[in-house]
């Protein structure tokens, strides 16, 4: 503080009211500084995270360049590393999960936001929040011992019989594979779709519903043709958010996807995902190139979720801000 103009006050006046005031202000400055350091720590952690991923993947990035992303071989013994089977598996399982979870989650959100009485709605939302809190390894456990046998003996044969003409549903029924992983992921992301969609639906002004009903629309018509379109962008946001979750989900997928770096048209085929290969091989990786290739996979996963999360937040912000801008409160 010696270089501030006020510091010219002599030391013997330290107990004067003015100096006291300044000391109190200094305490404020200390509090400001301490909290600022805490906030800056968060920034530092994030910057370090990106930096470490970038630096530690250098060997693999220099060796393989962009072709890393489109190479199909993953052969640690020969030192050949390509990310394509993992990127493929990650995208396919997430797509399956979205195809199942979005209709279910949005449907449930419509029920909770438009139809259910407030008490029922809030207690069901409570249950859905609890569902979101279930650890992913628990889903994996149920996946391995409950879903995989059911898939093998019942669901996959049934799909083969009815939709077997599609390349998606061909090949031997192992139980494990893309489809099973996608189903487990779907159950895991439904709560996210549901809670965000419900919030954006509730943000649509009440007048719009009433106007539609006054024009003679049925409840469903007012919901589907007025409320849902008004909340459309926010619902897309919830979908992106759920997709980002699905892409990064590790344990449940690792336990049921089959862990085989394979690219196949059939959803019955065993596969692999980025997160799963990290979980399985990271602690056993021998050699710098192997580790560096795995860390580059981590970097790819980070970037994917980074872009999706940013997009999701933007979309949700746009809708809820627009909605609450119209509402009186």
């Amino acid at each position, binding site marked *: 503080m010696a270089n501030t103009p006020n510091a010219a006050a002599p030391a013997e006046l330290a107990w004067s009211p003015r100096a006291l005031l300044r000391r109190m202000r200094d305490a404020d400055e200390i509090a400001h500084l301490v909290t600022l350091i805490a906030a800056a720590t968060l920034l530092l952690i994030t910057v370090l995270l990106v930096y470490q991923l970038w630096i530690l993947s250098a060997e693999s990035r220099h060796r393989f360049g962009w072709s890393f992303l489109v190479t199909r071989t993953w052969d640690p013994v020969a030192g050949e590393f390509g990310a394509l089977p993992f990127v493929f598996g990650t995208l396919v399982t997430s797509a399956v999960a979205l195809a199942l979870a979005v209709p279910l989650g949005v449907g449930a959100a419509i029920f909770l936001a438009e139809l259910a009485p407030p008490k029922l709605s809030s207690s069901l939302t409570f249950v859905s929040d609890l569902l979101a809190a279930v650890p992913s390894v628990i*889903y994996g456990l149920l996946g391995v011992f409950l879903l995989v046998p059911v898939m093998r003996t019942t669901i996959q044969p049934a799909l083969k019989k009815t939709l077997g003409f599609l390349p998606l549903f061909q090949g031997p029924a192992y139980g494990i594979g893309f489809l099973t992983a996608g189903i487990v992921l779907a159950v895991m992301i439904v709560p996210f779709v549901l809670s965000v969609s419900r919030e954006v639906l509730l943000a649509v002004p009440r007048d719009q519903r009433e106007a539609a009903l006054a024009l003679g629309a049925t409840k469903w018509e007012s919901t589907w043709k007025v409320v849902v379109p008004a909340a459309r962008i926010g619902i897309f946001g919830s979908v992106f958010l759920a997709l980002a979750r699905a892409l990064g989900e590790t344990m449940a997928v690792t336990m049921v996807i089959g862990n085989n770096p394979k690219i196949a048209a059939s959803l019955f085929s065993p596969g692999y995902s980025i997160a799963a290969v990290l979980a399985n091989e990271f602690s056993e990786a021998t050699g710098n190139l192997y580790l560096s290739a795995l860390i580059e996979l981590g970097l790819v996963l980070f970037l994917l979720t980074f872009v999706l999360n940013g997009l999701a*937040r933007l979309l949700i912000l746009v809708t809820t801000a627009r909605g609450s801008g119209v509402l009186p409160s």
Partner: protein
Amino acid sequence: MSARMIWRKAVNVTMLSLTGLCALITVSALFFILGYLLWNGGKDLSWSFFTRLPAPVGELGGGMANAILGTLKLLLLAALFGVPIGLLGGVYLAEFGGRIMPFLVRYTADLLNGVPSIVIGIFAYAMVVMRMHHFSTLAGGVALAIMVIPTVLRNTESFLRDVPSAWREGSFALGANKWRMIATVVLPAAARGILTGVLLALARVAGETAPLLFTAFGNRYWSPGWMQPTSSLPVVIYTYATGPYEDWHRQAWAAGLVLLGLVLAINILVRAFLSRGTAHERL
């Protein structure tokens, strides 16, 4: 009534019932999971499960005392490192802050919150394990702490913002300076909400497996101190469920029940008693 009207009413009833069905399916998933775990894991829970070390492979019995203690130690570290940073950072955002910094911090917190947990594991591996050259409880605790920070920070900020600004002004009018106002008026007023956020964040990381796989690793025995690899409930569930032994599978179910019970109990208690029914944003 015209045919068209009948058709519209039929569509109305059908679609509305379908949305109800969606809600029913989603909600019943939780009860199904809980019931299935109780059915499968309940019969293998015994006193020795909580007090004994795992039995050698092939021998029946044994428990998971080391994994339970490991999870508690990891949570303690996560709270110790993560909560102060998150809490103070939240105070910064709500009470201090300039123009650019708060925006940057908020944005980064949301970004960090969305980073897949396995990537956090890689980071903790790079920062702690690579430097110490071995797996440790400390590394696992750091990984979990990094996941706790953004949640606690955003949550603390939002609850501090709910404190009416008249209270701040009143406190100033009585002659308090800013830190005193924060410490004696604002923080106590928001304490319940902040505690809710902290406990929910800890409950969330309690079930995390991925960031522990190559930080805390695993251990068949007790893990003395903080520098040894340690066992933890989620990792044990993963190892046992994917292992080849029938006895391991039964233990995995029992451990799953304990973990789920722990996580759900914290969630229910906190949401029912602390949050006063306000559904805070989970984003």
